[in-house]
């Protein structure tokens, strides 16, 4: 976290704007000259999909709604588009001495799109609302580290844990205190060294007072604080954003209007880009990846960037399928997978072979954590398996959801395993994603199964704790290692960033020792754009960097 020298200038500018508003006629949409420079104006259309929840930052955890909300809401912290490094945005400063008590000062004069000022209570109210279980907010669990979170959860059980006596004990977390209009404090139950990094995630955005009057109406037309404001959400058709003339932050957009056109499928969107009917498509359909067809279709109009995503093969918990208990067997399977060839032949190079469990885009990434266990070596794989006494079952299974285009690579992976180990390997399709996840959730899925993880915030912790800590929410393989849990806790308490990172790396090394899952590859995002736009850059999150895009 580092402050920027630009902060002072911005604060001065907004003070002037404030004065002008005070003396003026109350015309909130005045034509103040837009901040920033370069080619400005015009409008663009971008591939969009259907938001799964109301457009409230505390209630959105998927990219369809998230891509839109990123532009509509600014957060305390902004992640650098290229490196994902956090920088203060709405926060003037975030201070802590002990990683448990944080004091946050916000910049003065920041405004929501409805003209009301952003104050400390807008953050505290929004976070309390999100954490209060009966509100059922998707991102409520992000507030778990804050003191008093437990009292906002429902205590009952049965169908509706929030009914009657099950009502939460409190409505506000004790760990959040408003000091004055521009200052508030956070106290966490345990030490959380990377809390400031997390504050750039949309769950931590401030909400204006109008939200609390009518959350439902707000979800259809959110009033944010970011470089763009939402003009209209035409359900299942389009989402229209226009430039926020009053935006005073450091990351304004260049174009005046962004329209997210909602598609059911990426193929037609790609064809629309070819015909210049759509400006940016944020992924390339499989049909155009074959032989790099998109590169000849869109010469000089495509880009690729590694993003914070990793794909792994999980092992069913021992109680469900004991055949994979042996670490040596796991390592043998991992060594039997020819990642490079599969990536070239199936994905046309749009993945990077994984050498560990943490994506290279985050701070603290250490290469080669998995070591030789993630390096293809058919002979070594076979000898390792033989030394371990062979595979206990009659065949290895690898399950995938059949509706997600995973058939090809899972079959290729199985072939690779079969050839190297001489053990039969079957790729098993489960009819669709809902069924697939329900079998995993109910611990009925045997053998190995695919899993993907997209980071929420750019921290090494986000790739380890939610996935491999004992009892963690996404620990589908029920991995449990007390030493690992201990290292994660220690890292969270470390006051020094380098020390924290080193502890996280030690924890990751334990995953390699136990072969908790098989790392397959890191994700890359590929985009294409039309002749109408220029300057399209991909962020470390796989989204479009709207501070750079302009109309040609």
């Amino acid at each position, binding site marked *: 976290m580092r402050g920027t020298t630009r902060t002072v200038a911005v604060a001065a500018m907004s003070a002037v704007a404030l004065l002008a508003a005070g003396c003026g006629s109350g015309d909130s949409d005045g034509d103040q000259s837009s901040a920033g420079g370069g080619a400005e104006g015009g409008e663009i259309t971008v591939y969009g999909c259907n938001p799964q929840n109301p457009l409230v930052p505390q209630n959105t955890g998927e990219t369809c709604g998230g891509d839109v909300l990123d532009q509509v809401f600014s957060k305390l912290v902004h992640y650098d588009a290229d490196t994902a490094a956090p920088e203060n945005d709405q926060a003037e400063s975030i201070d802590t001495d002990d990683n448990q008590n944080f004091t946050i000062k916000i910049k003065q004069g920041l405004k929501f799109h409805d003209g009301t000022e952003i104050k400390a209570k807008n953050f505290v109210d929004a976070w309390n609302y999100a954490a209060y279980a*009966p*509100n059922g907010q998707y991102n409520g669990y992000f507030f778990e580290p804050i003191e008093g979170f437990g009292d906002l959860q429902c205590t009952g059980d049965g169908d509706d844990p929030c009914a009657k006596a099950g009502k939460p004990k409190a409505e506000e977390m004790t760990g959040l205190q408003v000091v004055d209009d521009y200052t508030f404090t956070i106290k966490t139950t345990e030490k959380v060294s990377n809390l400031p990094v997390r504050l750039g995630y949309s769950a931590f955005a401030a909400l204006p007072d109008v939200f609390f009057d009518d959350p439902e109406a707000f*979800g259809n037309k959110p009033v944010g604080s970011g470089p763009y404001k939402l003009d209209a959400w035409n359900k299942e058709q389009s989402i229209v954003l226009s430039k926020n003339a009053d935006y005073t932050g450091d990351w304004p957009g260049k174009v005046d209007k962004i329209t997210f056109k909602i598609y059911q499928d990426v193929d*037609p969107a790609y*064809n629309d880009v070819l*015909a210049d009917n759509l400006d940016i498509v944020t992924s390339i359909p499989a049909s155009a990846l074959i032989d790099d067809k998109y590169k000849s279709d869109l010469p000089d109009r495509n880009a690729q960037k590694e993003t914070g995503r990793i794909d792994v093969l999980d092992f069913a918990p021992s109680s469900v399928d004991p055949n994979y208990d042996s670490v040596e067997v796991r390592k043998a399977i991992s060594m039997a997978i020819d990642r490079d060839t599969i990536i070239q032949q199936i994905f046309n190079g749009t993945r990077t072979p994984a050498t560990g469990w943490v994506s290279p885009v985050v701070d603290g990434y250490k290469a080669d954590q998995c070591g030789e266990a993630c390096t293809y070596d058919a002979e070594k794989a076979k000898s390792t398996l033989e030394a371990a006494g062979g595979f206990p079952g009659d065949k290895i299974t690898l399950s995938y959801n059949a509706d997600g285009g995973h058939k090809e690579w899972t079959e290729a992976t199985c072939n690779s395993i079969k050839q190297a180990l001489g053990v039969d390997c079957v790729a098993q399709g489960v009819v669709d994603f*809902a069924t697939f*996840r329900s079998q995993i959730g109910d611990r009925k899925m045997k053998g190995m199964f695919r899993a*993907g993880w997209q980071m929420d915030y750019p921290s090494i912790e986000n790739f380890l704790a939610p996935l491999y800590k004992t009892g963690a929410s*996404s620990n589908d393989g029920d991995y449990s290692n007390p030493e690992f849990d201990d290292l994660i806790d220690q890292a969270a308490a470390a006051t020094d960033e380098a020390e924290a990172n080193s502890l996280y790396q030690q924890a990751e090394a334990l995953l390699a020792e136990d072969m908790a899952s098989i790392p397959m590859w890191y994700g890359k995002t590929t985009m294409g754009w039309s002749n109408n736009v220029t300057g399209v850059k991909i962020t470390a999150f796989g989204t479009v960097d709207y501070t750079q895009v302009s109309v040609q």
Partner: protein
Amino acid sequence: MGTYIVRRLLQMIPVLIGATFLIFAMVFALPGDPLDGKCGERACPPAYAAAFEEKYNLNDPLPVQYFKYVGNLAHGDFGETYNGIKVSDQLKERYPVTVKLGTMAVVIEAILGILAGVLTGIRKGGFLDNLVLIATLVVISIPIFVIGGLAQYFLAVKWGLFPVTVTSGEATFYQLLLPAIVLGSLSVAYVARLTRTNLAENLRSDYVRTAISKGLTKRRAYGLHALRNSLIPVVTFIGFDFGALLGGAIVTESIFNIPGVGNYIFRSIKSRDGASVVGAVTVLVLVYLVVNLIVDLLYGLLDPRISHD
């Protein structure tokens, strides 16, 4: 005739109720609940899951859920999709588009198909007959996503003759023209072959020979007598096909990004979105029933021997 129509309309009521229940039960019986795939690769947070289940009555047993649904339906409330959009709004927006597309496809298939069928039926074994035979064979054997994809790439993207996709809710005639041709192409082949075979058969029958021998012009004997009789199976097919096109245009709808019903149903089934599936399919069943009634009434017009009294 009047009593026949009334009777048929009354029959629709139990069919509709039965259909809603069956569909509801089938969606309910699908493995995996709506929350499973909703939160991506991770399990839904408990607070979110509890609120979600409460809102959509997911904790109730099937009959209770069904009666709550039907109760709302009686007030004209189709419920909400799992991403919080009113199903009735979706149906209102999507059905007109789908009906427009289906009608255009049916008109195209009827005109082209019957025309080709008549021309080839009259001159059986001629050059045109063989040409149509081969052409229809080719069309039938190529999957629709290939035809659609190729048509989109060459006619729209490459040569710019048609719009590439339907990009707004108000799909225009021009935007739907290429999708309708693609959608109708397969059926054109069937209609052409059906018409040809039936017509050729009827041309050999006694009544046509009699008509010709008593001095009727060929045009009149063929057009008025033979063709009318030959069209009965064709009309049956087209009526059935219209219903199938409404719900079954999933592939065409995806290729051209048409905000229609087929895609909506498909997506809703995948997300276990009961209210959407039942709402959309119930309307589909209704359309099917009405179209079938119209087809049955048409029989009487084509062949007076078929009477509805």
